[in-house]
């Protein structure tokens, strides 16, 4: 057994002329949550399909839960749960029947499968819907049932492929709560998402993929720090040009005016902030608000993916506004 629940080395996969995956390596420690972040077509789903034994890679190899995905596929399948991007529940079966069949296929036996189905319906707030045909379910209910199904056999590693895509905000936050709940129990989770806030909310580590390559990885904080330092932002009471110019001059040569705010890089973080506050007091300009702003993951994302997309490493990194 390795210490990693998922370990992939140089996965590659092409579909005809299209290189869906060029080179993706991952090491995900047991019990952690990793978000694979990328746009549509970045290679997220292909990675998940390979790691869940649905697709053979053209190159590279991987171990999931300590077993090789190619030579020990059945061992892997006994230890994973998968929730796909598309609804993978049977419309003509009830929620309970769907869960039971997955339990039976996981070799839990009929009695245990039914018992697990009951437990999971309760856990995911689907008790009333348990006897209803899935075709009558709402989008959010389907996703929750799908997630419940992937937990039937208490998997060591859970794959969630865009678990909240297409859900309304309420259903989405319900899904987030359900996922957090699982993580608290120690399940290793690999989730894919196009939403930065989702990655930021749920993941311990984020791997940004673009055009089949890993373009950045780290904790959400590391990623934010990697593309720039925080900036100090001074917002005035009104857009008085004279006052704004005065503040800009006080904040140094890199300061820029945006609307009724002036922002400048805060090289020393809080110390810079304190210094700015002192200078503002000396200036006597009416100030509405002063604060530090950290770069958002949005900026990290657009920076790392644009850099690669433009093939110009010198493309200007997003300036923290």
């Amino acid at each position, binding site marked *: 057994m390795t210490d990693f629940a998922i370990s992939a080395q140089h996965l590659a996969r092409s579909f005809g002329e299209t290189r869906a995956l060029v080179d993706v390596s991952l090491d995900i420690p047991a019990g952690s949550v990793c978000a694979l972040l990328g746009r549509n077509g970045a290679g997220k789903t292909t990675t998940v399909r390979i790691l869940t034994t649905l697709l053979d890679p053209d190159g590279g190899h991987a171990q999931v839960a300590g077993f090789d995905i190619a030579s020990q596929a059945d061992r892997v399948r006994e230890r994973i749960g*998968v929730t796909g991007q598309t609804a993978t529940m049977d419309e003509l079966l009830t929620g309970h*029947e769907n869960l039971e069949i997955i339990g039976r296929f996981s*070799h*839990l*036996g009929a009695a245990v499968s039914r018992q697990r189905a009951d437990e999971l319906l309760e856990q995911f707030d689907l008790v009333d819907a348990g006897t209803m045909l899935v075709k009558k379910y709402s989008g959010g209910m389907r996703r929750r049932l799908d997630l419940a199904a992937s937990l039937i056999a208490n998997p060591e590693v859970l794959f969630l492929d865009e678990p909240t895509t297409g859900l309304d905000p309420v259903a989405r936050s319900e899904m987030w709560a359900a996922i957090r709940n699982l993580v608290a129990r120690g399940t290793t989770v690999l989730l894919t998402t196009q939403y930065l806030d989702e990655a930021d909310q749920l993941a311990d580590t984020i791997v940004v993929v673009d055009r089949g390559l890993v373009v950045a990885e780290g904790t959400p904080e590391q990623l934010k720090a990697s593309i720039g330092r925080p900036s100090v932002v001074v917002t005035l009471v009104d857009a008085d040009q004279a006052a704004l110019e005065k503040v800009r001059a006080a904040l140094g040569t890199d300061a820029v005016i945006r609307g009724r705010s002036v922002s400048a890089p805060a090289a020393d973080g809080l110390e810079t902030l304190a210094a700015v506050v002192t200078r503002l007091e000396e200036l006597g300009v009416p100030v509405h608000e002063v604060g530090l702003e950290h770069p958002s993951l949005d900026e990290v994302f657009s920076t790392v993916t644009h850099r690669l997309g433009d093939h110009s490493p010198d493309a200007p990194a997003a300036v923290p506004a």
Partner: protein
Amino acid sequence: MSAVALPRQSSVQRGLVDAYNATRRYLIRGKRQPDIIFGSVLFPVIFVVLFGYVFGSSISVPGGNYHSYLMSGLFAQSTLFASSQVAVAVATDMNEGVIDRFKTLPIARSSILIGRSVSTIVLGLPALGVMILCALAVGWRPENGIFDAILGFLLIELFAFALSWLGILAGLIAKSSQAADVISSIPVFLLGFVSNVFVDTSKMPVWLRDFADWNPVSAVVAAGRNLFGNTIGPPPSGVWSLEHPEITTIGLALIIIVVFIPICVRRYSRTSR
């Protein structure tokens, strides 16, 4: 968190359990689609009436009753239509996410397909029952007794099981359910109609007659007629498959089963799609 302890079973035992569970799933689904069962029951009724009375009034078979002659043909032909339906159903299945989920579960690769095949036979039984009742109503009788008749139906069902695997393969190859319908309908119509199902082949033009005589469906029909006691006249001379239709049917079914089940399972489990 540890995985739920799995009872240790041999892989054969597990495979059988998986196949049973898959069959059970298809049977539940079948029960939820009464319109499809209704259609499959109605179809043969229409056929018995349509061919029995519309054609039957102008087709005569020397020294026999056309209704009795026709029934074995219709029983055999219904297995062809069923295999075409399997092709469409499998193609539909493969485009649904649920099959992807099954592929991530530790089940025997063959189980889903076996479930599809076995459930097709089981869900087809009501239609067969209704067809037998219709046949009895229009005057068909198993002249050789009940035992031979049962043997005849077993033979036809064996052929149906074998054919369902050809349907499954067509469904796996087809990109869509529409494509599966087209791919499977052409052989079904060729084999189903250029045969001895409706008429005696002896009056066909030579090239067509050769095809009809050697058509495996003709052998199945002839085997049914022999066992039901509805055979009229001797088989065309020199056509081995019609001279020994029972052996031909069993042999052909076994060959299809042995050759095509592994091909279907390989095609299904091919991960690189």
